[in-house]
């Protein structure tokens, strides 16, 4: 669809593009990324004939750019610029109607049914049909940009060029514009070449990206393949972390701010008790991986609340109830990991171990009225839940990788299962040794300062210390639970 062959460009002495060659397939959404001054806008301007092509060749749909008149070009390609100049007084209809210019012939062309159909179609595609007679200046920034997109679509181009189309837009405007764009591209077989400032938008919406650096191609390919932290760090000269998008199979990017986090060894933790909750408070946010009711998944948290509820607790809206509970007691819900238990929280066990290079701490509450053998749980009647649960918070002083977090969860879970076995806790339904209860919660938290731990399996010193501490805490918690049950 679009071929760019050894294109170079210089402004005076400064070489802005240097032998850039690539091809874009029909129907592709093709992103151009790069820092300021890397030549991305120049490239778009060369393709859109705003700048004369001095060296190299550009071919659109089999035809050389230099052989195309302005009107011929505008029938094949359209541009959505970064910011369009506002023309006061024009309505949306008049603005979009300009997109029909390249299709009209003669001195006084009539407005045909085709023109009207293309205009209506373009407005519908960007969702502005209802605003057709509004003056442009009464639209929001995002709507105005969508009106200009409609003008470009009304040209019925095969190729759409965009130069940082969402530069001055708020999030909802960006998402709407880009969604509309992707839809239109798919529905019409439109090829899109877009300059992006935002790596995340490029990663989410592009089939392929071209990374430009100092006028040369630094990388070209699918976002997941080429947008590596190493490349981006080199090109953008800034520390960048890559994450997985929770819903889309594309990478996400963020910066690494160069700020020192306050010292927060495990010793900075404080365990306190409310009437119905054991609360662990950290001096600085900890990175947590948990299965807790509130704050599950990866999270940064300063509070760990293990709340005690009665046996007859109505769990139909446990999460909402827990959120209200946290708010009532002054815990920030977005920075709190919240668990529930029927066990008396006064029996919470708090163990700490200082290693040479690290320290680990565990808080646990345990009850096994609901003990389950995970290997045979399939034999259970559904809804046979009884009170009794094991809740655990493990805090590690150090930097854990994501792999280390997962291994810490494995190690803690295995140690817990072993503690139950050693105390001969049985699954009452199957009569076999239990591995846990059906409602256990685990949170692994790390300070993310100090030593880096790539692994936390039992092959490491950290893993061994962790396993031992979890085992001891579980055994101790179970002992306290049984004692209290006997007393009753």
């Amino acid at each position: 669809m679009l071929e760019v062959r050894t294109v170079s460009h210089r402004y005076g002495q400064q070489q802005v593009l240097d032998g850039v060659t690539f091809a874009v397939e029909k129907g592709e959404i093709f992103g151009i990324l790069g820092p300021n001054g890397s030549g991305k806008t120049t490239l778009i301007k060369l393709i859109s004939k705003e700048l004369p092509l001095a060296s190299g060749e550009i071919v659109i749909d089999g035809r050389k750019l230099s052989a195309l008149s302005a009107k011929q070009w505008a029938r094949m390609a359209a541009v959505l610029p970064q910011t369009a100049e506002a023309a006061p007084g024009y309505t949306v209809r008049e603005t979009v109607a300009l997109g029909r210019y390249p299709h009209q012939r003669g001195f006084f062309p009539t407005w045909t049914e085709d023109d009207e159909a293309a205009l209506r179609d373009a407005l519908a595609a960007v969702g502005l049909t209802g605003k057709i007679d509004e003056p442009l200046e009464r639209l929001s920034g995002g709507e105005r940009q969508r009106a200009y997109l409609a003008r470009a679509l009304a040209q019925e181009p095969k190729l759409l060029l965009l130069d940082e189309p969402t530069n001055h837009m708020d999030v909802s405007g960006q998402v709407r514009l880009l969604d509309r764009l992707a839809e239109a591209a798919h529905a019409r077989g439109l090829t899109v070449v877009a300059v992006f400032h935002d790596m995340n938008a490029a990663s989410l919406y592009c089939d392929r990206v071209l990374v430009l650096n100092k006028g040369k191609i630094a990388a070209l390919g699918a976002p997941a393949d080429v947008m590596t932290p190493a490349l981006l760090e080199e090109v953008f000269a800034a520390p960048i972390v890559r994450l997985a998008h929770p819903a889309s199979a594309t990478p996400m990017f963020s910066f690494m701010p160069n700020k020192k986090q306050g010292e927060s060894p495990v010793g900075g933790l404080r365990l306190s008790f409310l009437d119905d909750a054991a609360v662990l408070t950290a001096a600085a946010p900890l990175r947590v991986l948990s299965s807790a009711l509130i704050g599950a998944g990866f999270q940064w948290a300063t509070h760990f609340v293990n709340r005690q509820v009665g046996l007859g607790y109505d769990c139909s809206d446990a999460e909402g109830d827990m959120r209200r509970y946290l708010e009532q007691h002054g815990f920030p819900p977005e920075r709190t990991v919240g668990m529930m238990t029927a066990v008396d929280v006064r029996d919470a066990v708090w163990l700490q171990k200082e290693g040479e290079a690290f320290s680990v701490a565990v808080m646990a509450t345990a009850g096994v009225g609901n003990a389950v053998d995970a290997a045979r749980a399939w034999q259970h009647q559904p809804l046979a839940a009884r009170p009794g649960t094991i809740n655990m918070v493990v805090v590690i002083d150090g930097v854990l990788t994501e792999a280390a977090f997962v291994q810490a969860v494995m190690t803690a879970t295995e140690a817990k299962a072993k503690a139950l076995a050693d105390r001969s806790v049985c699954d009452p339904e199957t009569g076999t040794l239990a591995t846990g209860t059906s409602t256990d919660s685990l949170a692994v938290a790390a300070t993310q300062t100090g030593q880096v731990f790539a692994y936390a399996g039992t092959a490491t010193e950290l893993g061994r210390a962790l396993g031992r501490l979890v085992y001891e805490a579980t055994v101790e918690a179970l002992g306290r639970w049984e004692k209290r049950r006997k007393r009753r």
Partner: protein
Amino acid sequence: MWMYILAVTAAVLSLLVGISTGSLSIPFSSIVRILAAEWFGAALPRHIPADWVPIVMAIRLPRVVLAFLVGASLALAGAAFQGLLKNALADPYTLGVSSGASVGAVLVIFLGWQWPLFGTFTLPVVSILFGMATLAAVLAFTRAVERRMSVETIILAGIIFGAFFSAFISLMIALTGEELRQIISWLMGSVAMRGWKYSGLLLPFFLVGAAVLIANSRELNAFAFGEEAALHVGVDVTRRKVIILTAAALLTGAAVSVSGTIGFVGLVVPHMVRLVCGPNYRVLLPLSLLYGGAFLVLADVAARTIIEPRELPIGVITSLIGAPLFAVLFFRKTKRKMG
């Protein structure tokens, strides 16, 4: 549609008022009868005195027609300049072409030129030649500075040439003796005592200029969104810019050569039309033509009646009437938008 009907009605009414008004008041019905008799050979009713016929046909009609053509040309040119240069303060005189035409006219008066065969008609002919030469110089200079011919360069080139020519005019005014009054009154503008010849000189420029500009309304709309946007929708930017500028400058130069530099019409009429009918050039250009013509005819009526039998310079009147009218419209429109 109603906008066009209203504008045509206003134009026809202004022409009738223009013919009717003067030291001798002639009723509309008599004007229509006289025109019918002269143009279509209808019988002239008895009650109309025979000496009214030359007053209408030889004195007042040529005068209002010239006023109408000048007003229409200036308003069209102003609308085009404002749109193309994306500058609300642009008027037909921005490009310096009018200064060039004025230099030609003042030179003719200063030197007392009278070409054989041309007689007093020498002045407008020399003036329009100077105007066209100025346009060519401005465009050539702009192109030499920058092949793209950006709007900023064009405006600057116009200002350079305009300032240079204005200095020339001032120089001639300073050096002249007896012709001072004549020069000043020409510069202030007038459509009096010109006869049909002047309209005849202006008419071809007017027809071509108006046709070219109206045929370029879609391009002018595209330019209103900026040159970049115009390029993106497929406008051949540089070529169209030169065509539109040339058409507008010829309209201006021709109007100035027959009537002097009448201010305000070209600046304000397009603005007033825009306030009422929106910025779309498809509508703006024809309406500016009609209202510009009507406005100048009425301004001329005021110029010759306010202190009868003496005449005031029409350029003074256009501003005296135009500025308050514009102020009221602008005030009301802006208030409505805010409220």
